[in-house]
């Protein structure tokens, strides 16, 4: 047993003409939602395939729950690939049963669990339908059920929200949170920063086959904060300021001024606020936070 469900150490993966992963190491703690970010072609899918044992690493080791990744771990992992696919001409119920049994469930348990999910998602009428008769969104739901039915310790979701309408996307989001509550760890690969913002506890950013950054989302955001402040005030803010520089300011018709202040080195928000209180009438003062979008763009540029 280990505090980390997954530890990837110095993994290298080469393809014929390029290196997909270049000494990538990362650690996924238990019971978190872990965002695996990066532009297209960065190596995310290669890494996910290695964790799923679809391919093997050329170098490096992978620990699952503290022990080297072994063949039996496939039963502890649920994987939803980015490119969804099911047998088109197979009935929904049969298909889910088959996929669940491949993941090690016996027939009775699988049926029992499937019934629960069919009731939960209100899709009881789909059991005997062919997959090709379902809409794309419905197929996604079926595939989501297939991914998590065997209650894996680690769930890997590659772009889980693509193809879902907002209602179903919310439904899936709630399910993901519930799975986390129940103790599963979720690795979540995406380019959609708003869902990262909303769901992830940890993030890891991969760019050009290398890990660029990794850590708690809040810490990373702290690290990337622009060190600027948004200020709304009335009055005059001319002349020299010791603690800050005015980057831009705009006056609206009511005489309210909105400005962005950049802190001079060493000075904190309190220092700036002290200086301001003496000089102007402060209406609102707030430190600017880095959005995940900013973090992503900044890291990828370097």
């Amino acid at each position, binding site marked *: 047993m280990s505090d980390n469900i997954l530890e990837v150490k110095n993994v290298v993966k080469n393809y*014929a003409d390029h290196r997909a992963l270049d000494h990538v190491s990362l650690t996924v703690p238990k019971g978190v939602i872990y965002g695996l970010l990066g532009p297209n072609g960065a190596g995310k899918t290669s890494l996910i*395939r290695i964790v*799923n*044992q*679809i*391919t*093997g690493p*050329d170098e490096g080791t992978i620990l699952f729950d503290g022990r080297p990744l072994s063949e039996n771990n*496939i039963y502890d*992992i649920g*994987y939803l*690939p980015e*490119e*969804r*696919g*099911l*047998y*088109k*001409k*197979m009935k929904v119920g049969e298909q889910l049963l*088959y*996929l669940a*049994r*491949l*993941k090690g469930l016996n027939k009775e348990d699988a049926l029992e669990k499937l019934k629960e999910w069919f009731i939960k998602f209100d899709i009881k009428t789909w059991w005997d339908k062919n997959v090709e008769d379902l809409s794309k969104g419905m197929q996604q739901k079926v*595939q989501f059920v*297939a991914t998590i039915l065997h209650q894996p310790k680690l769930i890997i979701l590659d772009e889980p929200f693509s193809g879902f309408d907002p209602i179903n996307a919310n439904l899936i989001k709630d399910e993901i949170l519930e799975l986390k509550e129940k103790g599963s760890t979720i690795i979540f690969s995406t380019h959609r920063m708003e869902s990262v913002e909303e769901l992830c506890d940890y993030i890891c950013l991969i760019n050009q086959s290398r890990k660029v950054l990794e850590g708690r989302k809040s810490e990373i955001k702290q690290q990337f904060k622009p060190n600027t402040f948004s200020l709304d005030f009335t009055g005059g803010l001319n002349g020299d300021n010791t603690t800050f520089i005015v980057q831009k300011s705009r006056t609206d018709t009511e005489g309210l001024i909105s400005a962005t202040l950049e802190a001079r080195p060493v000075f904190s928000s309190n220092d700036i606020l002290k200086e301001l209180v003496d000089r102007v009438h402060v209406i609102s003062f707030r430190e600017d936070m880095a959005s995940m979008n900013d973090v992503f763009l900044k890291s990828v540029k370097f």
Partner: protein
Amino acid sequence: MKNILLIIQREYLTRVRKKSFIVMTILGPVLMGLMYAGIIWAAISSINQKKIEVLDQSGLFRDKFKNSSSYVYEYMKGDLDGLKNDLKKSGADALVYIPANVFEQPKSVKIYSEKGVSLEVQSRIEEEIENEIENIKLTEAGITRSTLENAKVKVSAETISLKAGEEKKSSATAASIIGGIAAFLIYMAVFIYGAQVMRSITEEKTSRIVEVLISSVKPFQLMIGKIVGVALVGLTQFGLWIILTTAIFAAGGRIMADKMQKAPAAMTEMQMNNMPPEAREAMKDQSAVADAMPDILGAVSTLPVGTIVFCFILYFIGGYLLYSSLFGAVGSAVDSETDTQQFMLPITIPIIASFAIAQIVIRDPYSPLAVWASMIPFTSPIIMMVRIPFGVPAWQIALSVTLLIAGFIFTTWLASRIYRVGILMYGKKITWKELGKWLFYKV
């Protein structure tokens, strides 16, 4: 192992439960039965009475043309030109003109008609006239027809193969029929079920379910599971075909036999003559077959039946495994079925070639070509099955089967190397060079 069984089960059940499988399995033998019934029925019932006028200036054929259910003859008098003009009015199908000097110049007989006469009518009239002239000539020479018939002898040689000191009665005909059928069935099976494996692998790849599957099972397990599953489907279908066909032909045979028993009694020579030539030929053939039947059955019982059945199953499975893994490799390499063409050719050539070689081997099952082709794993499933009914030394069968097993282990290995890379490779134009590289990829 548990997962391979699950895969086999799925591959088998989804196919066997398909409507197309059930329809084909039942319809195949029924269609065969119907086809034969249709041919026999058509031969017997396609009788359409024709009216034929005869102008016989030689006077030799008076009352020689016999009326029947299919032909009505009418002897005419008068001159040829007049009758020719009246032909349309009289409603006759044809006018036969036999000149006075027909005996000396048999080629001067003429048949006139509005719509043109069928080959059948022409040959029938020619035959009647030939027979009559022949009779006259025979009579002149002092020979009766019955003397002549008695002089004819039918020879059917019996072939005896000397093997290991024992003298065995065998029938080359029976051996080549059995061998030919077995070879053809294997040829069909390799194509039908090999293509099924290929199509289903491409389908899994393009529908992208393969990525979900190989996160649960090893690609090799998935491939083997599919190949074995389809093999079982093939054995089921062939088994059912053989059972159903036998049942249908047995039932049909009994009905035919009933009629045949009554028929000869009721059928006079007259009626025999009334039948159109094809039907008569068919009847003759059938009676010939019926005469030969005990002989053939006798010969079959001298064939190594046990060996044939055992080897058929062995080569059926071996040949299928060898080729279907190659078909599978092609299926995994391409993005859609239409791209399979360029890779199919090298696989289909040996299959088609072995079927072509089989035609030669059937005539000479002990030639060096036959022996070599029955050893090479790519041709042996078809060629060896042609040879076995003729009797093949056990060591040759053992060697051939060993090579076949080695062959399919090799092709399966080759296929699995390509398969594991191919199923995850999308949107790439695949070349032979590329496939070669895949063999040595580390996955």
